[in-house]
C-alpha cells in the first residue's frame, strides 16, 4: 500500500538533503533491492545497492566509446561553444537553452555521466540521469509502464535504456510510415 500524499511530502521534507529518490515511498510491487537502493541512492554508481535493471548495452555510435581513448590526454574546455567534433550531436535539440554538453557529460573522467549532485554514473545507468528531469517517466519506466516491454509478464522482463529509443541529443521521435490499412468490406471478394 502506498503511503498517502501528505505523509510522503513529510518524508520528503524530512529527508531534505537527499536526492529525489531518497525518502520517496517505495512504489507498489517494487523489488526489495530497489527499495533498499532508494534508501541509499546517493552512493556512486556501480556500488552495491544501486538500482539495477537488465538493460542492453548503450547504443553508442561506432567507435566513440570509450571517450577516454581520445579525451584522456585532452584538456577539458568548459566554455559553451560549438564543437569541432561530434557534428552528429549538434545542434543539441534537447533543452539547449537550459543546458549544453557538460551538463550531462562529465569532463574528467569523460567515460562517465554526471548527475546534478555531482554523482557520476556509467552510461549503462544513464536512466538515472534522464530521471532527474523526467521523474514521472522514470517512475513509470521502472515499473515497466513507460517504454517498450518484452520478456515475460510473470517472470524476467527486458528493460531498455532511455537511449535505446530516445536519442539524448535529439530525443523527438521521427514519424513512421504506417503499414497498410485493412481492406474495405466492399473490396473483399472471393
Amino acid at each position, binding site marked *: 500500500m502506498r503511503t498517502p500524499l501528505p505523509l510522503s511530502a513529510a518524508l520528503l521534507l524530512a529527508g531534505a538533503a537527499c536526492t529525489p529518490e531518497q525518502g520517496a515511498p517505495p512504489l*507498489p*510491487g517494487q523489488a526489495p533491492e530497489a527499495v533498499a537502493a532508494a534508501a541509499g541512492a546517493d552512493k556512486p554508481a556501480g556500488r552495491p545497492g544501486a538500482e539495477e535493471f537488465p538493460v542492453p548495452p548503450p547504443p553508442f555510435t561506432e567507435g566513440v566509446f570509450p571517450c577516454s581513448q581520445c579525451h584522456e590526454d585532452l584538456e577539458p574546455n568548459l566554455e559553451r561553444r560549438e564543437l569541432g567534433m561530434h557534428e552528429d550531436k549538434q545542434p543539441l535539440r534537447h533543452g539547449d537553452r537550459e543546458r549544453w554538453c557538460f551538463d550531462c557529460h562529465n569532463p574528467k573522467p569523460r567515460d562517465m555521466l554526471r548527475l546534478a549532485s555531482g554523482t557520476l554514473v556509467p552510461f549503462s545507468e544513464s536512466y538515472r540521469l534522464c530521471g532527474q528531469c523526467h521523474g514521472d517517466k522514470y517512475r513509470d519506466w521502472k515499473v515497466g509502464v513507460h517504454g517498450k516491454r518484452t520478456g515475460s509478464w510473470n517472470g524476467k522482463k527486458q528493460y531498455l535504456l532511455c537511449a535505446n529509443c530516445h536519442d539524448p541529443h535529439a530525443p523527438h521521435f521521427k*514519424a*513512421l510510415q504506417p*503499414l497498410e490499412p*485493412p481492406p474495405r468490406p466492399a473490396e473483399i471478394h472471393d
Partner: protein
Amino acid sequence: MNPKDQREPGMAGSQLPEASSRRDFLARAAAAVAGAVLANCSPEEREAYLQKHFRELTKDELARVLSRLDADYTKRFGKPFRVGAEPALANTLFGYALDLSRCIGCRRCVYACVKENNQSREPKVHWITVLEMKKETGVDVMDSDAYYRAEQVPREGHFYMPVACQQCRNPACVRVCPAGATWSEPDGIVTVDYNWCIGCRCCMSACPYGARHFNWTEPKLPSEEANPETHYLGNRPRPRGVVEKCTFCVQRTRKGLYPACVEVCPVGARKFGNLLDPASEVRYVIENKRVFILKEELNTQPKFFYFYGV
C-alpha cells in the same frame, strides 16, 4: 348428431396417419442420406465431424483431437505443427492497458498479430483495428477512420486508438451464442471453439467493439508464413464459416510470454499483465493513471483499459 367414428383397427382417436407416413418417409430418407454420407467418410473424418464440445472432451479425447490436428496441420503446411491446449494458469486474470498518448498509429501491432495468429492473408483478416481520431473531437468511435493512409504518422491534429477484443467480464457475445461455442476462460480470455462454432454470427451482432471476425470463405495462409506453435483455442489456422478474434495470444500468454502486439509496439504503448498481481504493469496503470474503457454504459466490463501516459 354425432357421426360414428369410422375406425380401422389400430387407429386411435388422435393418431395422425398422414403425418406419420410423411414423418416415416422423411425420417427414412434423412437416415438414408446421413448414412450414405457418413459411410463414405473415413473413420477420421467421422470422428472429426462428431467431435464433442471442447469443454466436454475427456483427457484422452482431447489428446486424440490434438494429435489429429497436429497431423492435419503438419500435412497441410508441410512443416511440424503443434496444437497445444494449455489450461489457464492459476491465480491469473489477464488485463491490458493501452497508452493513447503514445500510440502513433503505425499498425505494427496489426501485422504482428496477423503473423503470430495465423490469420487469413486472402481475404485479409485483422484482429486489431486502429482508429484514427481527431484531437479536436476526442475519443468518438463514430467519428473515426480505420482506413487512414499517410506518408507519416502521427498526422497533425490526429491521435490513434487501436481496438480489438476487450475480453469483457460481462461479454454479450458469450450470452447470445446458441451453441455455447464461445465462453470466458478462468484467466479471463474469451475463446471460441473453432470446431464447434456453427457460423450463425449472433456474437458478431452482439459485440459492441467490432472485435469478432468471420471467415467468409476458406482462409488462405501460405505455408512459409504459418506460425506452427499454436493453441487449440487461439492461433491454430481456422476453418471457413467460423468466427475468430483476439485471444490475448493465449498460445503465448499461458506460457508467460507477452502478446505479440505488446512486444512489437515501437513506442511501448501496450501494457499487459495479471490483474491479480499487484506488481504487474497493468495494475500500476489502473492504480496510478486515469484509465477509461470504451462504451462503459453497456456494462460489458472490458479488461482492456485505455489511459494517457502523459
